[in-house]
């Protein structure tokens, strides 16, 4: 393990990196536009005209803007932009194939198979992702109208789909809740050089128990990663540097199924419904880590940035507090697999998710079928080594977590046969508990892999000047 290469610089060029990569915007509303490229030259000019509007990682010293714009491309999109073959052939194979073709690895089968995806994903026509975030829905509409006009008049691309998303309004305010009622969005890792409001518990665990940023190359292309190597990246390096890869997955949530299951099981779970909900994922629904507060939620703890991601599982290998297979423990195992957490530092992803659809408060009539879920977006330098590994090995298979074939309780593709064991203690209110017959609480409705270029790379693409030599 090398810490030399990565620590030789202190600051990234934030003006060259798309802002979406470096920070979560925490805007209340967003729309993701999907474009089909119909003419390479005209689409290049369209991109050129958008570059100055792309939100970079620069600090918002003048205050938060009204809205933001970011851009990313599928492999098919890059071919439609006439990138040179030598460049196209140099991309990693999983990006070349796209997410649909990776179904076997991702376990996107059964109810998650591509025949159940939204129509825009049926053909490979979603070439460009435009992410627009705004302070209000009105601003969002006006920004998108302007964009639509630019796209239409370019003659190089057309909008084939739009996905709205937004923070769930909870008690009258935009929140970080998702439709099952959990507070989401904890635990994104820190990276060297990324200037961010850091919290203990993010990044990687050091031998002395403190936390340090991960190598920049786990997030961005062109920098050393945790193995002291450069991530696999396309040529020329100037196209790759300061860019990254994004996973986009529309995850439909079967809200009725989830609430019914929780209700049904909590009838015989002595710890009560909220504790059972907490045991499912590893956090109480207000966000309190169950590892730190196993008996009750604690709003102060949930909000305390010094504590709400600062925990390990080494003292709880039996899962007496946080079950060994709980969602947050499987997907970010910290030190749970031993070696002081060293096994997981090359498997971390940066999540940029937002819910979509209208939230139905607990106790009100709810269905599975309404349009509600989460737009899961994750950024990583290697789709194969990071996102795909987490999905394949930690979500759809349980061996690393000593859970045999058991999948992730919350988002596993169970097909009605899933099983989740909650470990317990002698305490009558914390007994071992078996959850069987797990259905799919979450179903995949589409998505793909995207390349998120730097501003410099966008200029090269727009100028038709990508030169692999």
């Amino acid at each position, binding site marked *: 393990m090398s810490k030399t290469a990565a620590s030789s610089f202190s600051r990234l060029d934030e003006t060259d990196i798309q802002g979406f990569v470096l920070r979560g915007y925490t805007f209340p509303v967003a729309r993701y536009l999907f474009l089909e490229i119909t003419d390479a030259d005209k689409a290049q000019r369209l991109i050129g005209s958008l570059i100055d509007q792309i939100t970079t990682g620069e600090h918002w010293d003048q205050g938060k803007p009204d809205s933001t714009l970011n851009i990313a491309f599928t492999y098919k999109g890059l071919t439609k932009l006439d990138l040179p073959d030598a460049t196209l052939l140099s991309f990693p194979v999983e990006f070349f194939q796209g997410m649909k073709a990776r179904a076997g690895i991702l376990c996107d089968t059964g109810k998650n198979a591509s025949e159940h995806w939204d129509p825009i994903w049926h053909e490979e026509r979603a070439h460009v992702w435009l992410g627009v975030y705004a302070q209000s829905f009105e601003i969002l509409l006006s920004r998108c109208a302007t964009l639509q006009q630019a796209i239409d008049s370019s003659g190089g691309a057309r909008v084939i789909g739009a996905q709205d998303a937004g923070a769930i309004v909870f008690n009258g305010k935009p929140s970080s809740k998702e439709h099952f009622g959990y507070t989401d969005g904890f635990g994104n890792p820190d990276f060297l050089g990324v200037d961010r409001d850091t919290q203990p518990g993010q990044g990687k665990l050091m031998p002395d128990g403190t936390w340090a940023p991960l190598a920049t190359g786990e997030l961005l292309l062109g920098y050393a990663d945790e193995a002291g190597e450069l991530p696999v990246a396309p040529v020329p390096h100037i196209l790759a540097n300061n860019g990254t890869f994004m996973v986009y997955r529309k995850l439909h949530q079967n809200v009725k199924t989830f609430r019914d299951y929780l209700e049904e099981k909590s009838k015989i779970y002595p710890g009560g419904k909220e504790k059972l909900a907490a045991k499912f994922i590893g956090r109480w629904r207000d966000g309190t880590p169950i590892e730190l507060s196993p008996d009750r939620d604690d709003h102060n703890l949930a909000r305390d940035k010094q504590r709400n991601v600062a925990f390990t599982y080494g003292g709880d290998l039996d899962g007496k507090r946080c079950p060994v297979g709980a969602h947050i423990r499987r997907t970010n195992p910290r030190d749970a697999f031993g070696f002081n957490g060293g096994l997981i530092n090359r498997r971390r992803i940066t999540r940029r998710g937002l819910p979509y659809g209208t939230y139905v408060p607990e106790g009100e009539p709810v269905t599975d079928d309404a349009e509600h879920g989460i737009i899961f977006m994750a950024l990583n330098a290697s789709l194969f080594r990071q996102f795909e590994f987490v999905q394949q090995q930690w979500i759809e298979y349980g061996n690393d977590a000593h859970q045999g074939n058991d999948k992730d309780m919350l988002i596993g593709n169970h097909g009605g046969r899933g099983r989740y064991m909650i470990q317990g203690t002698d305490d009558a209110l914390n007994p071992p508990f*078996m959850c069987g017959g797990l259905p799919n609480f979450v179903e995949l409705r589409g998505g793909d892999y995207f390349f998120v270029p730097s501003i410099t790379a966008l200029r090269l693409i727009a100028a038709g000047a990508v030169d692999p030599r």
Partner: protein
Amino acid sequence: MANQSGSVYGLTVLSPVLDDPEAEVSHNVAIRKYLSTLPRDESSPFSKVSSTHMARLVVMEDVVFVGHPAHEEHLKSQYLVFESNFDGDLDTYLTRMAQEIPDAVESVWSHCVGYPGLKNVRAFVAYIKRCQLTTTFYFADVNNKTVQQTLRALQIQSGLARFIELNQGKPPSEIQSAFAEFWNSVETASPLAPGAKGVGELPCFAAGRAAGSEGGD
């Protein structure tokens, strides 16, 4: 012994492949052709030798020259590589191979130098031992349990999980009688064959009895 980890034995065999320019089909190609027909699941011949945890057969052609500054080198022969992790001692295992999957053994090793055939099982055992590559340490990807113990443990684990799911929260007396039935079911259940489907399906969970649980196996 270094080739043994608890009750599990790690066997590596390198058998030189016959080199016969006159042969209609060269021997390495013949081995590969046969290997390509072998099923890789529970119908593999090695599942008949029921003490086998895993086995692999590969033809090693040569060492690959990776360019300067490496030296270009070549093996004197092509080799058949046979790897197996199994329960018990080597003599017993090789004897079982000779007796239980003679066709597979014959189809592979008849293309190898010095193979004595299977008429004399002791000669075959001695031959394989002559080709054995011993080690001082090997990675045993199985715990110190036999194949049958492992399958049995999976059967019980899966069954117990189902038992808990169906009975948790019931009054102790009901749990006790249900457990008695469950345990009787476990004790009388027939042993599982490798690759058996429905590891958790014990008679006590037969159709009708599991009513009330949603969507189970």
